């Protein structure tokens, strides 16, 4: 991810870096990006669902979410995860620990991006600008941190999955 820069050279560098990232993302294997994005999204929902049901907290949580809103949030997470996974695959050769840091970076982007979607959904529902602004302000560093941890975890898991597939797929 591009760091913030103040001068013209830095801006030119950022722009060049962004273009390189776009090119690399375009080169990423679409099947792998689609697989990992869907795998991450479904796991991110199914695993907490199991835990929430086990502690009897699922019913009250789902009661507060309208079906259409829930479907919309899920589709937003799925799309966002596909976009960040393509960036991650473009930024790494998946050859070891070097892939984990970009995984954390793009996981962080996913976390903050999803928070903004969530904040927009809350904003449309409650129409309380101060509450929405506070949620965005307090939530951004938390979402970035959680996203980075989850992204790094998935990067390690993805490396193991790709390695296992490599061994199984070739005779």
């Amino acid at each position, binding site marked *: 991810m591009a760091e913030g820069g103040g001068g013209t050279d830095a801006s030119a560098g950022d722009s060049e870096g962004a273009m390189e990232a776009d090119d690399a993302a375009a080169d990423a294997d679409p099947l792998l990006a689609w697989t990992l994005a*869907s795998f991450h999204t479904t796991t991110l929902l199914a695993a907490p669902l199991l835990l929430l049901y086990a502690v009897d907290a*699922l019913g009250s949580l789902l009661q507060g979410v309208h079906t259409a809103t829930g*479907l919309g949030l*899920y589709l937003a997470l799925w799309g966002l995860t596909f976009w960040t996974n393509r960036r991650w695959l473009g930024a790494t050769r998946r050859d070891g620990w070097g892939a984990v840091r970009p995984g954390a970076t793009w996981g962080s982007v996913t976390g903050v991006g999803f928070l903004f979607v969530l904040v927009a959904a809350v904003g449309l529902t409650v129409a309380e600008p101060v509450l929405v602004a506070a949620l965005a302000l307090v939530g951004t560093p938390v979402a970035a941190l959680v996203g980075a941890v989850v992204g790094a975890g998935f990067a390690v898991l993805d490396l193991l999955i790709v390695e296992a*597939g490599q061994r199984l797929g070739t005779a």
Partner: protein
Amino acid sequence: MVPALPLTATHLFVRWLHVLAMAVALGGGALAWGVSRVAADAETTLAVATTYEVAFWGALGVLVMTGVGNLGALAPAIPRGRWGVAFLAKLGLLLVVLVGSAVRTAAVRAARDATTPATTTLERGYALTTLALVTLVALAAVMAHG
């Protein structure tokens, strides 16, 4: 057994989508298994496998999304007891299917690039996937009808 609830058009649509997604995942899995058993060449097996993998992950994404939608229709009184045991078993098996399928797709991807693709491994992978999805459907039937 789930208590009868008044269904809205949204809930009916979500249920229909859930069943359709499982039909794609399970029917496609059985097809990919059958093709990998009878196809004479690896090229046909890999073409069917690649198409299935794209459809499978789309179907799984829709299955999880609509599965939560179905749960939402029951909230806040989500049943426990025998229904809960079947639900926990279904979610646990689903997580196994997700990880296993990610490995299977990675194997298909590697086989496409290999000079000697491991089609027997893919055949076993599709057999396991089909079996696991049939078990998920059986657990869903237990949850719906007791």
